[in-house]
């Protein structure tokens, strides 16, 4: 058996070991961010067993965002906003922020128009979903894809 370890052999084994350590640390570090599954769960919590239909909700976000720290968001829903037929709530969710919930708005017939706006943070390029709850108990959703170049939440304080 060769007692002397060649330089090439040493580098090969050391490299393999380092790669192994690297892989292990990648597996250990779980980034603090919601996954699409977590978003689905958050939506379920709001919606319950009801079916979520697509449509009626118009979610406006810039398609390309340079700074994820402040992203203008507008949600509007086609609704007459009468006592009999109005939007009760609008919820906004994200796929890849540290937590899926963004904001919940509660509206009513006194709102007159189902249109709200705010500014949100986005941690990554992702899909944002808005769900609205109507007074008849149905739920409708709309979504928007956003490309983020500078992410929020990651910089040091």
């Amino acid at each position, binding site marked *: 058996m060769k007692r002397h370890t060649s330089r090439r052999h040493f580098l090969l084994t050391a490299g393999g070991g380092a790669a192994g350590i690297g892989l292990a640390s990648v597996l250990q570090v779980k980034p*603090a961010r919601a996954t699409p599954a977590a978003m689905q769960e958050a939506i379920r919590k709001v919606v319950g067993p009801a079916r979520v239909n697509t449509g009626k909700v118009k979610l406006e976000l810039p398609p390309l965002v340079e700074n994820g*720290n*402040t*992203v203008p968001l507008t949600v509007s829903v086609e609704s007459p906003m009468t006592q009999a037929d109005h939007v009760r709530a609008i919820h906004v969710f*994200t796929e890849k*922020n*540290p*937590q899926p*919930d*963004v*904001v*919940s*708005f*509660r*509206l*009513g017939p*006194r*709102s*007159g*128009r189902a*249109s*709200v*706006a*705010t*500014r*949100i*943070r*986005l941690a990554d390029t992702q899909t944002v979903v808005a769900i609205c709850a109507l007074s008849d108990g149905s739920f409708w959703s709309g979504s928007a894809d956003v490309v983020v170049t500078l992410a*929020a*939440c990651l*910089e*040091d*304080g």
Partner: protein
Amino acid sequence: MASALINVPARARRGEIIEVKTLISHPMETGYRRTQLGAVIPRDIIRLFVCTYNGTEVFRAELHPAIAANPFVMFSTVATESGTIAFHWTGDNGFSVAESVAITVE
């Protein structure tokens, strides 16, 4: 010290849908950021915003850390009668700010 900016038309016709814009200064610290020494910066956000029109709640927003610093909220309401529109923000660490504006409805 927190300060709020509110934009509501001073006069409106009865039944008109008016737009309400509010902005309040607040860092909205997410609780996910760390200092350069690795310590987590504790969460400090506004959790709830409520708007009442002559004492009746007309709008409410539940905020989460994904709302940008200095929360801006825009919504609409029907001008039903003259009176006051009041705004109340509440949040972590006992944060509580109330503001109100007068509106004349003709």
